[in-house]
Structures are given as structure tokens and as C-alpha cells.
């Protein structure tokens, strides 16, 4: 179901005009109201009046995560503080957090784009949505909440964690939709199985999963275990939170809500825009945000865009699910490795669950990659030689896919931290 037919299925020429008008306005707004952007524009010698079409966006300066931290906490504010009704921040685990300050208009926008997102998976006012994204500063919980409310569905604001209670609520209240991270959905599936829950008998039929990278094979796994349709949703605190892009019923690529969040793909080394279909770094400009508008934010996510028509009828540009991170990408002995590649290999192997962790160390001058994989009942044998065979087999498959050798180590089930938030996939002990 298309929530906002007018904007989501707008003919592309009309959409470009709308984007052009909005870009002109936002460039003017930040130039006049945000000293940080005024100096950035001035440094490049660009003025708001230089924007004549949406393509002129390439003239504008980039914003990086470091920029955002430098102007912490209020440096991106483009309106009076009294007009800000809500503030969210990133976790700030690697430095000062990124701040997203919302006006009432921004909150309404957030509800709209999340309503579009949930509608893509068929959520209507008749649904009961169990929102297991964390509520609080994290944008996941409240972002989804506003969308659920906007649609008029019933929201169960259970937040993250407390697995036992999640399963009880799901059973007792008959939740029809679930929102959480993909790894947590699998954790729920496992925990439910242990409790003897037959998910095929529950009313749950759809899930919206984001906030961490996942893969097509993980989708198959989630869909089979929870007996639902699993949709990938995408967003980031720097832009608005969830609600930036989402998969339609085709479950293929993610439509970007580009009337509000304009995407570009650039070469991460040169900063030059890349054509549709080419992989590069995803960059976003918020075209309509009032509180903390952002110009050309470099996400460090790697993907590509396509403007090919989608069978669903929406005209909005589509992006491939995130293929990797320019910074999460591990470079081992000169080879680029994304955790998602490892997941792909594991999920295809019989008896192996995609619960893994990567340990990178430098021994002498050599990078060593160790892959911890959780033991399963199917993998286990009373004979050490069979366990060692399994490890070699996984190592061989990984080498075929990654093109570098790794050492696989079987570990006890549930010994790899996961579930509540983002799975901690990589421990890089190299100090370079």
C-alpha cells in the first residue's frame, strides 16, 4: 500500500522540480542561519543563489561526522532553540555524539516517512505493532513509534530487550508486526523456539528491520524462523533516524524518500558524484528538515542507486541495501572485507548459524583474521577430528569468498554478544 501516492509516485520530472525548489530553500536557510554552513559555503566560494537545479547540489560542501562532533551540541541548529521539541543523539561510543534536534514539523515529517515505511509492508490501522527498537535517545524506538501512530495502528512500545516479555506480549496481545534490529529478531526466534513457541501459529506476519547491516540470506532465515515477511528499512541519526529509505513489497531495493532526503553516490576518495549503478559512498541532504538540516552528509555507507521503474509504482530512486562501510570495511592484507560476506558464507553452510565475530590482530607484520563461530547441535560431534574438519571446511569456504585466509574457531553457543542492540561483529586489535 502506498501511503503518500502523490509524493511517492510523483513523475520524475515533477520530483526534480520539487527537489530543486527545496534545495534552493534549504541552501538559503543554512547559509543564513547556521554559521558552520556559512563558513563552509564561503570556503568553497559558493552561494545559495548558485543553486539552479538539483544537480547543482554537487557544488555544495560535504558534512562529515567529525564536522558534526566539532559543532556539538547546537552548532547545526537552523532555528530558535525554543522551536525544538525533541532531541536525539547517537550513542557516541567513538566520540562526541551526533545531535538531531527536531521541530514539531520535523517530528511530523518523521511520522510521515515512517508511515510510508510501514505501509510498504502492508501495515494499516488494523495492525498491532510490537516496537522492539530501543526507546530513548536512540532514534529507532520513537521514530518507529511516530510512524505507527501516524498510520493509526496499535503500538506496543515495549522497547528493546527483555526477551521473555517480548515473547509473552507477542503471544498475549497478538502482535501482527515487529520492529527491531535483524539480529534481535533472530534472537527472539531462537528464544521462542526454546520456549516451544510455534511462530506459524502466531498472528505475527511482518517485520521491519534496520539499524545494522544484514543480508539476503539472513532475511531468508528470519522469514523461515518467524514465519513473517521481513523488510529492510534504513535510516541514520545524522539525517532523521529510521525513515530515510525502505523496501517496498518487492523486497528488493530500498526506495529513498528523496523528496525529503536527497541521496547521492560519490567516489569516497575524490568526492566526485558517481552515476546510477556504480558503487560508492552514500551521501544525504535533508531537503525539508527545519531543526538541524544537513547538507551532503557523508554516511560512509557503500551502496549504489537506480532510477529504473519499480513494479510497485513508486517512482522514488532505489538504493541497494548497504553493501559495507567505508570505515567498517576491514582491510586485511590489502583485501577489503565486509562482515556481510562472512555472514553469507556461514548462512549457506548446513548446521551453521550466522552468529560470528571477527577478531583482527597483527602478528609481526601480518594481519591475522580469526572468525569465531558459535557451535550448534548440528555441528557438534564427540570426535575432535570432526570438529576440526568442520573448522577447516568453514575456513576453506571463507577463503573462497574473502580471498584471504582466516582461522576459524568454534565457540560455545550464545558466547558471542548479540541481541539487544547491534551485534558486535568486529574486534580490531591492530594498532596501526
Amino acid at each position: 500500500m502506498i501511503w503518500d501516492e502523490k509524493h511517492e509516485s510523483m513523475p520524475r520530472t515533477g520530483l526534480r522540480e520539487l527537489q530543486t525548489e527545496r534545495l534552493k530553500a534549504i541552501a538559503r536557510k543554512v547559509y543564513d542561519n547556521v554559521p558552520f554552513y556559512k563558513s563552509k559555503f564561503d570556503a568553497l566560494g559558493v552561494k545559495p543563489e548558485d543553486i539552479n537545479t538539483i544537480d547543482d547540489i554537487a557544488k555544495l560542501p560535504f558534512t562529515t561526522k567529525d564536522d558534526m562532533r566539532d559543532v556539538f551540541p547546537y552548532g547545526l541548529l537552523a532555528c530558535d532553540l525554543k522551536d525544538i521539541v525533541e532531541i536525539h543523539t547517537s550513542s557516541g561510543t567513538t566520540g562526541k555524539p551526533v545531535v538531531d534536534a527536531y521541530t514539531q514539523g520535523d517530528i511530523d515529517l518523521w511520522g510521515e516517512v515512517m508511515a510510508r515505511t510501514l505501509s510498504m509492508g502492508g501495515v494499516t490501522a488494523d495492525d498491532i505493532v510490537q516496537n522492539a527498537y530501543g526507546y530513548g535517545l536512540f532514534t529507532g524506538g520513537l521514530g518507529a513509534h511516530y510512524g505507527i501512530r501516524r498510520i493509526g495502528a496499535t503500538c506496543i512500545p515495549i522497547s528493546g530487550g527483555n526477551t521473555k516479555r517480548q515473547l509473552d506480549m507477542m503471544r498475549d496481545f497478538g502482535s501482527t508486526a515487529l520492529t527491531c534490529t535483524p539480529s534481535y529478531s533472530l534472537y527472539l526466534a531462537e528464544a521462542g523456539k526454546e520456549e516451544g513457541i510455534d511462530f506459524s501459529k502466531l498472528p505475527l506476519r511482518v517485520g521491519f528491520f534496520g539499524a545494522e547491516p544484514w543480508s539476503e540470506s539472513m532475511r531468508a532465515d528470519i522469514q523461515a524462523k518467524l514465519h513473517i515477511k521481513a523488510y529492510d528499512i534504513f535510516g541514520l541519526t545524522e539525517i532523521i533516524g529510521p525513515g530515510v529509505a525502505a523496501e517496498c513489497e518487492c523486497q528488493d531495493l530500498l526506495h529513498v524518500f528523496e523528496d525529503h532526503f536527497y541521496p547521492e553516490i560519490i567516489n569516497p576518495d575524490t568526492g566526485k558524484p558517481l552515476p546510477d549503478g556504480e558503487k560508492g559512498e552514500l551521501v544525504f541532504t535533508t531537503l525539508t528538515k527545519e531543526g538541524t538540516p544537513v547538507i551532503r552528509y557523508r554516511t560512509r555507507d557503500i551502496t549504489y542507486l537506480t532510477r529504473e521503474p519499480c513494479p510497485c509504482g513508486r517512482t522514488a530512486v532505489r538504493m541497494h541495501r548497504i553493501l559495507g562501510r567505508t570505515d567498517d570495511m576491514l582491510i586485511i592484507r590489502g583485501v577489503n572485507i565486509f562482515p556481510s560476506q562472512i555472514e553469507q558464507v556461514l548462512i549457506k553452510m548446513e548446521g551453521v548459524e550466522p552468529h560470528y565475530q571477527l577478531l583482527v590482530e597483527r602478528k609481526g607484520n601480518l594481519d591475522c583474521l580469526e572468525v569465531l563461530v558459535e557451535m550448534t547441535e548440528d555441528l557438534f560431534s564427540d570426535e575432535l577430528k570432526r570438529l576440526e574438519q568442520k573448522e577447516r571446511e568453514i575456513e576453506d569456504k571463507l577463503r573462497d569468498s574473502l580471498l584471504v585466509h582466516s582461522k576459524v574457531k568454534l565457540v560455545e553457543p550464545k558466547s558471542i554478544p548479540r541481541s539487544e542492540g547491534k551485534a558486535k561483529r568486529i574486534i580490531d586489535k591492530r594498532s596501526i
Partner: protein
Amino acid sequence: MTVQQISVFLENKAGRLAAAASVLKNNAVNIRALTIAESSNYGVLRMIVSDPDKTMAVLKDAGFTVKQNPMIAVEIDDREGLLFDIVSLCDAEGINIEYTYSYVETASKKAILFLRFEDTDAAVQMFTRRGYKLLSPDEVCKI
């Protein structure tokens, strides 16, 4: 005639063996014989217990990865060279022993060898043919 062995996957981390042992103790599991096979990263605790099904269940509940498999329990007089006799017999018949461990009853001067074979059925036939006494699960419980 076979008996069930329980194997438990244990990472080589402080406290894992103790954790498994405490589950066994708290559930009053009676261990008849045990051995641990180790690699550098993990070990496999293998045991013959009085109640394999219950032992499986309580260890699983505690989050351990466990497995059951059939073993042959051969009862013989405890004397020098008996391991050699059994191994050469198996060799002669082309039956492959995966591993073995033993239990010695000092009072009766009997030894029980627990043997894991690739082809358990063939091994049972061989021992039976040769007149060896194979213990039943009940008999193993009583040792």
C-alpha cells in the same frame, strides 16, 4: 548391545568445566566413567552416566551443546595386555576404533572398556561372535 555416551562441548575458558560439573551435581547425575578430549581451543567432555536422557536435558537447559552416541562397553578380566588384545582383534577384523577409555573395578578385578567405533554394529557383531561380554545400559548403571 550398546550404551549411550553424552558429549559436551566446552570452550577452553576458565570455569566452563566447573559450570558443566555443577549442573551435573545439582541434578544428581551419576557419572560412571568420563574422559576429556582436548584441542587447543576447546574440549569435549565425554561421559557414561546413569540416566543419559535426563543428563542431556539438564545440560541443554543450562545452554551446553550436547550429543548422545552409542558406545560399546566390554567387560573383561583386568589383566596386563588386554588393551592390546582388543585393539589387535579390531585391527585383524578391519574395524576402526575411534577412541576408548576404561573403568576398573578393583573389587571384582574386572575392567570395562568403553569403545567408540565408526561402525558400531559391525563391532557389536564381532565382539558377540568372539564371546565377549557386552554390558547393557542397566548393567553399566550398576557398576
